[in-house]
């Protein structure tokens, strides 16, 4: 649905040319929710604005729905942009127009009659849950409601693509959740292709199917959210993820000396990650049954969802005879989960021996 090939964008600034994008290749399939994550200044907004050509790339090609936007004149672009809805961090609603008129805006631009407009706007008001607010002005709405108006306005021209530039970054976590749910349900109901720009991994985790990590104008890592999330390659990706995942040791072990070698009485701490189906399997119960001499303590556990897949993380501590622990480790390695050995640590206050 969206194909970017070798996109470069260089801004002329007083301090000299600024290369905001340095050769971006991206392929987004129909119906996908594609996340683009990056730090501030990474080039995310520039990239998303290249998709609807609010920003003309310095080099490279942009295809949307098979048509090459980079080859179009301004007036051709104006008509093709009706297929590409966009929502913004600061909503960008007309303060002088009511909710109804804001949603009607793209239809009026297209010269539609008032009856046709009404027939379009009323269902959209319903879709975003703002029927009661039709005659209010944006200043009378909360942030979440404003973004709902933004979404309805973006959908009015029945686009095939929805671009979201930090659409939830100005909202509190709860409102963010409800806006993301709305975007997700629209994606499912209308088979809309969605591009989500964000600096928050939580947003990616909550609704995206795929993700690209943008850093310094290049895509450093991309793939399904599950893959990138569970097996990040680059430091920057790991950093984004670590915000969501607590990687600290449980309190009873924090600050203790982590040793590589077995010593009696020390706990072998393991970080286990279960993905998808395996999250449901009683792997630990199996291990306990097989190796009764190993004492297994659950120190931390968290069950989450990524792209609708169960995703569990836990930290367990194993103590017992060395040989048994090694075998238990071998058993876990053979299961469908990812395990990471933290090391042997003693519990605070536990007497040695």
């Amino acid at each position, binding site marked *: 649905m969206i194909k970017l090939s070798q996109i470069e964008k260089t801004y002329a600034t007083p301090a000299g040319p600024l290369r905001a994008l340095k050769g971006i290749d991206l392929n987004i399939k129909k119906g996908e929710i594609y996340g683009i994550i990056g730090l501030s200044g990474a080039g995310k907004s520039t990239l998303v604005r290249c998709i*609807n050509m*609010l920003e003309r790339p310095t080099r490279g090609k942009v295809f949307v729905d098979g048509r090459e936007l980079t080859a179009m004149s301004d*007036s051709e*672009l*104006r*008509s*093709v*942009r*009706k297929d*590409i*809805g*966009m929502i*913004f961090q*600061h909503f*960008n*609603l*007309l*303060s*002088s*127009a009511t909710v109804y008129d804001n949603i009607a*805006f*793209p239809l*009026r*631009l*297209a010269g539609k009659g008032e009856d046709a407009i009404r027939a379009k706007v009323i269902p959209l008001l319903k879709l975003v849950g703002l029927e009661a607010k039709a005659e209010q*002005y*944006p*200043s009378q709405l909360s942030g979440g409601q404003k973004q709902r108006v933004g979404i309805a*306005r973006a959908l009015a*021209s029945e686009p095939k693509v929805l*671009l979201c530039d930090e659409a939830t970054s100005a909202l509190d976590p709860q409102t963010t959740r409800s806006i993301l749910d709305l975007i997700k349900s629209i994606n499912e109901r209308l088979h809309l292709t969605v591009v989500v720009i964000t600096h928050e991994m939580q947003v990616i985790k909550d609704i995206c199917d795929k993700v690209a990590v943008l850093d310094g104008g290049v895509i450093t890592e991309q793939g399904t959210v599950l893959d990138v999330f569970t097996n990040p390659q680059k430091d920057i990706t790991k950093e984004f993820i670590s915000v969501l995942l607590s990687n600290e040791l449980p309190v009873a072990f924090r600050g203790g000396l982590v040793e590589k070698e077995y010593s009696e009485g020390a706990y072998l701490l393991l970080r286990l990650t279960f993905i998808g189906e395996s999250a449901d399997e009683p792997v630990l119960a199996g291990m306990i049954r097989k190796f009764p001499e190993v004492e297994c303590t659950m120190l931390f556990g968290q069950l989450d969802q990524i792209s609708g897949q169960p995703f569990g993380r836990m930290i367990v501590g194993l103590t017992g005879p060395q040989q048994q622990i090694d075998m238990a480790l071998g058993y876990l390695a053979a299961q469908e989960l990812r395990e990471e050995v933290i090391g042997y640590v003693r519990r605070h206050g536990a007497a040695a021996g």
Partner: protein
Amino acid sequence: MSEDMVLLLGKALGETVYMVAVSMTIATLLGVPLGVLLHTTAKGQILEAAALNKAVGAVVNAIRSIPFIILMVAIIPLTRLLVGSAIGTTAAMVPLVIASVPFIGRQVETSLKEVPYGLIEAAQAMGASPAQIIFRVLLPESMPSIVAQLTTVIISLVGESAMAGAIGGGGLGDLAIRYGYQRFRPEVMLATVVILIILVQLVQLAGNTLARKLDKR
């Protein structure tokens, strides 16, 4: 105060209102598009045209730097050409318009600058043409501010019309000079001042009310 004095004041007030209303209308019709031109051709705006913007801006600044009383005299030949005479209420409106158009242009430009660029981008993303952006985004969004600015212009026009009146244009300024000053009738002077004050207050009140009504922010 004698009855004929009251009549004279009434007639002078009518002339002032007429001068201000007509010159304001013409100046607005020319000044608002000028403001739109100044704003939209500026750097980074939708119709960016640096050379044109600089040239128009220079002319605007030049006219605005001429004190009204000098402008009025300096353009007498032009006034003659346009209305056939340099004296009278209609003739007085020529300098009033010429002085007000660049003033309105700058005021409107200032108002348009207040419209967040994000709104223009949102409109562009929806496929709006430059004309649609001007008429459906820029002007409606800045209307409360434009109304407030135009109110200021009307008030300065009241003052300038009094000056124009003093060189034979009629109106309250003319009356104040001829009767209040030259024939030493302080009560006429006082009456015109009071009427001018009330007039300006009313204009300000009306402008504020309208601007507030339009402002949905």
